[in-house]
């Protein structure tokens, strides 16, 4: 619901309100040549006047003369690391003096996060992670602890990158739900929409101005442009059948020649949720800890079952990534696992493009 207009120069007031409500604010910032989410204390840390140039295997930032905070598409990671930590202790064990083992669940508490600058694709991916981690009879306690209390400030996309294709998956560029607040950034300020009661409470005291018709038009136009500018896309039909009926397609071998089986794609993918477990022990054997760490279907361990590695080569591992993401994800979650963020394309050191591979396999063509 439209709440009003916030002048660009007053953005800090929004952060102050969120800080005042006890949230730890997280926002996009430039670090080491990329946009990353990090703790945000003032709006001066936001990537003002920055745009991202993304293509297969390449990510660069460039200065612009603009003053917008969100004139770029996306950064290294979506919300995944904030809710599904890359490394996390699940339980600890202690050996008592009588030799008995005492197990205890690790239940750390987390600050409530307010995340600023969330994209439509990030929200779509978060909804999928929610279904995976919370949508079963036993919710994942670590995920639940991090996720609950999270306040989400979305910003509709005005500047998709060369890798984006959220328009073709139906997940963007406009955020359609799952946020507390959503912003349309114009040169002079922000149209503020509320998506929840606490979102409305947060902006109630901000002294928002009425939105003019021309501001509303400008916001709608930039969404249309953002949609029209996207050059990549997944075929709009359901790819399940084509993928699973082509296990011996020569394209799998061709992509395996280029693929490094490095797991960067699954690590940056905002919906991939695979993990491995590892145990550590004190040197004297008196205590230990059991942790989960991000894993990937590109590792050998991912398909290791009692001494047998079911997917020993890159051909079968790449096939697993695509047939799960775009195929069996439908059976699990009722939709594909791809929200069109383009990260796996940009952050692949080999520059492999999931949309090209899917098109080649699903169209029956094997060249390239």
């Amino acid at each position, binding site marked *: 619901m439209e709440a009003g207009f916030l002048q660009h120069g007053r953005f800090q007031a929004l952060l102050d309100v969120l800080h005042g409500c006890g949230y730890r604010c997280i926002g996009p910032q430039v*670090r*080491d*040549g*990329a946009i*990353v989410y990090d703790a945000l204390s003032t709006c001066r840390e936001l990537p003002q006047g920055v745009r991202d140039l993304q293509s297969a*295997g*390449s*990510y*660069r930032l460039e200065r612009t003369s603009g003053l917008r905070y969100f004139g770029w598409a996306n950064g*290294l*990671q979506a919300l995944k*690391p904030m809710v599904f930590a*890359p*490394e996390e202790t699940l339980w600890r064990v202690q050996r008592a003096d009588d030799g008995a083992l005492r197990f205890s669940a690790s239940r750390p508490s987390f600050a409530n996060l307010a995340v600023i600058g969330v994209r439509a694709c990030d929200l779509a991916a978060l909804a999928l992670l929610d279904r995976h981690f919370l949508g079963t009879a036993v919710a994942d306690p670590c995920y639940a602890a991090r996720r609950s209390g999270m306040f989400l400030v979305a910003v509709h996309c005005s500047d998709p990158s060369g890798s984006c294709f959220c328009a073709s998956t139906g997940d963007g560029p406009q955020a359609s739900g799952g946020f507390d607040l959503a912003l349309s950034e114009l040169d002079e300020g922000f149209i503020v929409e509320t998506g929840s009661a606490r979102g409305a409470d947060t902006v109630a005291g901000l002294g928002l101005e009425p939105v003019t018709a021309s501001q509303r038009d400008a916001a709608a136009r930039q969404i249309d442009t953002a949609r029209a500018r996207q050059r990549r896309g997944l075929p709009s039909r359901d790819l399940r059948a084509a993928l699973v009926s082509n296990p011996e397609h020569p394209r799998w071998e061709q992509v395996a*020649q*280029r*693929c*490094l*089986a*490095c*797991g*960067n794609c699954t*690590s*940056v993918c905002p919906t991939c949720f695979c993990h491995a477990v*590892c145990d*550590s*022990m*004190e*040197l*004297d*054997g008196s205590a230990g800890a059991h942790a989960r*760490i*991000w*894993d*990937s279907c590109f*590792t*050998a*361990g991912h398909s290791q079952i009692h001494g047998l590695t079911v997917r*020993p*080569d*890159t051909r079968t591992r790449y096939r697993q990534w695509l047939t799960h993401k775009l195929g069996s994800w439908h059976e699990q979650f009722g939709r594909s696992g791809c929200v069109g963020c383009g990260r796996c394309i*940009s*952050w*692949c*050191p*080999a*520059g492999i493009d999931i949309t090209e591979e899917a098109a080649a396999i699903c169209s029956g063509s094997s060249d390239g």
Partner: protein
Amino acid sequence: MTLPNPGRKPRVAVHKFSSCDGCQLALLGLGEDLLQLSTLVEFVHFAEAGPVDPGAEVDIAFVEGSIGTAADMERIREVRAKSRFLVAIGACATSGGLQALRNLAGGQAWIRAVYPRPAYVDCLATSTAVSRHVQVDFELWGCPVSSRQVTVALRALLSGVQPVEERDKVCMECKRSQMVCVMVARGLPCMGPVTRAGCGALCPGIGRDCYACYGPAENANAEALARRMEASGIPSAAVGRRFLSINSASPPFFAAGIGRMDSHD
């Protein structure tokens, strides 16, 4: 193979072959943990730390260094015969190390070029991994190995289980640490996508490209990475040198590197 409980403090030896001694520092540099370790095991041979008894029978032998001389070849067999569980530590012991670069040229030519009295130097034409000579029960890669990996392996052996091999690519550690990829964001020729994890992605963490000191990961597609580097404009011979470095004698790196050394940039 796992180590059966000997029913007493396990006896440990640390042997040195052709190497710089740096990997032994993974043990010596443990600080307080080293004191604790010495209450758990008995170091019967560890020349750099004091005890010297190279011929002792031991439960666990750590072997640092490559096989570079005829005497090394002889001695590694004796070490094997006296050790129940043999762990090769470091790039030298696992792949032949930096000194395996001499395998690529006439070893004797180097000796004549470097030493004023080459007749005193008695070494083989090649430097090779310990596993080329005797059965190795576990390998820890790296130049140098990490203290963490050495103690984790030792702890597993003390518990009577086979240590877990870390064989994924450095990229997995790099992404878990949420570092910005230096290859994608800066175009640096990072070796992370073919290199074995274990260092915690140390180099990308300080903004430089991994140079593969941990050797090849499992299922390393070295040829694809080499082609990708060439496509980014790096001359073939320079790409070849990335692979023919600390672990030049490891098969995947050798295969990707050797053909590229004929061209000169």
